[in-house]
C-alpha cells in the first residue's frame, strides 16, 4: 500500500481532481466547465483505483464521467435563455476566503488526529481480488434498507420533477 508509486499517484490524482474542480467555476464558458467537471470525476476514479476499489472506480467513470456530463451538456444546450457564461458572483472573494479557511481547518484536523488503522490481514481482503462481491453483499445485506429506500427517494424526486415542470391546466 505504501509503495512510492501509489503515493506519487495519489498526489498527482489529487492535484488533478482539485485543479479541475477549481476550473469548473473559474472558466467563463459553461461547456468548458462541464469538460473540467469530467476531468475532476476521472481524477476521482483514479483515486479510487489507488485504494484498490476497482468497482467504484469503474462505476465512477461510467456514471459520473459518462452519463452525467451528457445530461449536463444537453441541459446547457437546451436552455434557450441561459447565458452561456458562468455568472459573476458578489460573494466570490468572501466565499473563496471561507473555503480556504475550512480547507486549512480540515487538513489540520486530519493531520492532528490519530486515525485508527485497520490491519489488512484482519480485513480478509485479498488485494486485486475484486470488490464487486463485497459491495453486492453489503448492498443486499447490511445496507438493504438504505438501498431500497434510495428507490423511494428516486420515486419522490421523479414525481416531484414532473409535478414541478407540468404546465398549469387551469
Amino acid at each position, binding site marked *: 500500500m505504501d509503495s512510492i508509486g501509489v503515493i506519487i499517484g495519489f498526489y498527482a490524482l489529487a492535484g488533478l481532481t482539485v485543479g479541475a474542480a477549481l476550473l469548473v467555476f473559474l472558466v467563463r464558458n459553461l461547456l468548458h466547465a462541464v469538460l473540467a467537471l469530467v476531468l475532476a470525476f476521472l481524477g476521482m476514479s483514479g483515486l479510487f483505483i489507488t485504494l484498490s476499489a476497482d468497482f467504484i472506480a469503474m462505476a465512477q467513470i461510467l456514471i459520473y464521467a459518462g452519463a452525467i456530463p451528457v445530461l449536463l451538456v444537453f441541459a446547457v444546450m437546451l436552455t434557450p435563455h441561459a447565458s452561456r457564461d458562468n455568472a459573476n458572483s458578489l460573494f466570490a472573494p468572501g466565499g473563496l476566503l471561507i473555503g480556504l479557511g475550512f480547507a486549512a*481547518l*480540515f487538513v489540520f*484536523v*486530519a493531520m*492532528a*488526529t*490519530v*486515525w*485508527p488503522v*485497520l490491519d489488512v490481514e484482519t480485513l480478509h481482503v485479498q488485494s486485486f481480488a475484486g470488490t464487486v462481491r463485497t459491495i453486492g453483499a453489503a448492498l443486499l*445485506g*447490511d*445496507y*438493504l*434498507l*438504505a438501498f431500497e*429506500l*434510495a428507490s*423511494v*427517494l428516486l*420515486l*419522490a*424526486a421523479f*414525481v*416531484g*420533477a*414532473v*409535478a*414541478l415542470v*407540468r404546465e*398549469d*391546466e*387551469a
Partner: protein
Amino acid sequence: MNGWESLHFIGPALTLLIGAIVVLLVDLITDRRAATAGLTLLVLALTATYATVHVVLGTSGEALYGAVVIDRFGLYFAFLLIAITAAVVLTSFEGLDRISQAGEFYALLLTSCASMIVLAQANELITIFVALETTSIAQFVLAGLGRDDRSAEAGLKYLLTGAISAAVLLYGFAFLFGLAGTTSLAGIAHYVGTGPEGARLALTMAFVLIAAGLGFKMAIVPFHAWVPDVYQGAPTLVTTFLSAASKAAGFAIALRIFYTGLGGGDTFISQDWAMMFAVCAALSMTFGNLAAITQTDVKRLLGYSSIAQAGNIAVGLAAVASGSTLGPSAVLFFLGAYTATNLGAFICVIVVSKRIGSDDIRDYAGLLRRSPGVALVLALCLLSLTGIPPTAGFLAKVYIFNAAIQTGHAWLVGLVIVAVLNTAISAYYYLRWARTMVLDEPADATAFHPTLALGSLLAAMALAVLFFGLNPTWLIEAARRAAETLI
C-alpha cells in the same frame, strides 16, 4: 429473524409508502380531490393502527441487519408525525392554497412522513442519511408546488440550502466512519466509550458538522437563513408541515445520534457538544425573538418564532449532553406540546388568511368580533408559545429548564436565565398579536366561521394545548418511557 418479521418492524412506514403509491394511482383515475384526500386520511389511520399494534405488543429490537430499531422512542415520533400529517390533510379540505396538483401533494406528504418515521427508527448512519434525503426531497418539491413565483423561490432556496447541509452532514458521517470503522450507532458509541484522546479533534469536527447538517432541519441559528423566506413563500399548508414535522424529525435524529451514537452525557466529549448546543440555543432564541419583533407578516413572524422555539429545545439537548436524566424526556415532551401549539396557530392562520385574503398582522385587528372561536384558539396558542400557564407551552418550558438546572452546571443555569429573558422578549410580539385581535377595531366587521371539519380540528388543538397544560401526566409518562428506550 425472518423477512416478514423485518418488514413488520418497518410496517408503519411501509404502509404509508404503499399508500402514497395508491394515492398517485387513484389520482390518475379520478380528478376529485376529496377522493385522494379521503384516501390519504385512511392510509394515515391504518398507519396509526399499525403503530398502536406495536405499542400494544410492546415490540422492541433491531431489524434489517441493525439498520432500524423499533422502540418506544421511534413509535413516539411515529405517532407525532402521523398526527401532524393528518392535521395537514384535514386542513387541506378547506382548500389547497396555491397548489393545483392534489394527487402529487398528498403522495409527497405521505412519502415525506414515511421517511421521517424510518428516520426516527434508524440506527445506522447510511440509513439515516438516505431517509433524511428522501424526506428533504419530498419537502423541497412540496415547498415549490404552489403556482406562483414566491413558492418557486421558496422551493429553490430550500433545495439549495438543503443540498449544502446534506453534504456537510455526510462529511461529518465520513469522519465518524473513518474513526469508528462502522456506521452502526452502537458501534460508534462503543468507540467513543473507549475514550480515544488522540481522536478528540476529529470527533469534535464530526459532531460539529453533523450538528450543522441537522441544524438545517431543526432550524437553529446559524443554520436558519432559509426559514423566513421558505415559510413565507411556500403554500401555508406546506409551511405548517415543515414547521411541525420537519423540526420534530430533526430533533429526533439529533437525539438518536448524539445520545445513542455519541454516548450521551458521560463520555470524554460530552461537555464539548453540550457547549456547542448551548451556544446555538442562546443564539437561536435571541436572534429569533429579536427578528420576530419587527415582522408584520404572520408567516414570517411564526418562522422567526420557530427559530426561537428551536433554541428552547436546543437547551434540552445541551442538558442531555451534561448528563441530565430528565433531558431526553424534556425534549420529547416539548416537541409534543410545541407540535399541538404550532399546528393550532398555523391552522388559525390558514383559516383567517383564506377569509381575509391577507397575511398582514394588522388585518387580524378585531378578529375576536369577526370570528370569536378562531380568535380564542389563536390567542390560546400564542399564550402557549410564550409559555404562560395554564398552557402546555408553559409546562414544556418549565420541564426543559428544570432539566438544564438539574445538572447543576453554572453555565447551564446561565443559559436558562438567557432563555427566561428571551421568553420576556417573545411575550412582547406574541401578546401584541393577541392584543390586536382582541382590542383593535376591525376595518371590516363581517363575521366568518371555519368549516365544521376545521372548527373541530381547531377545537381539538386547543383542547390538547389546555389538557397537556393542566394534566400533563399522560404525555410526560409517554415521553419518559420513550426516552428510556434511548440507551
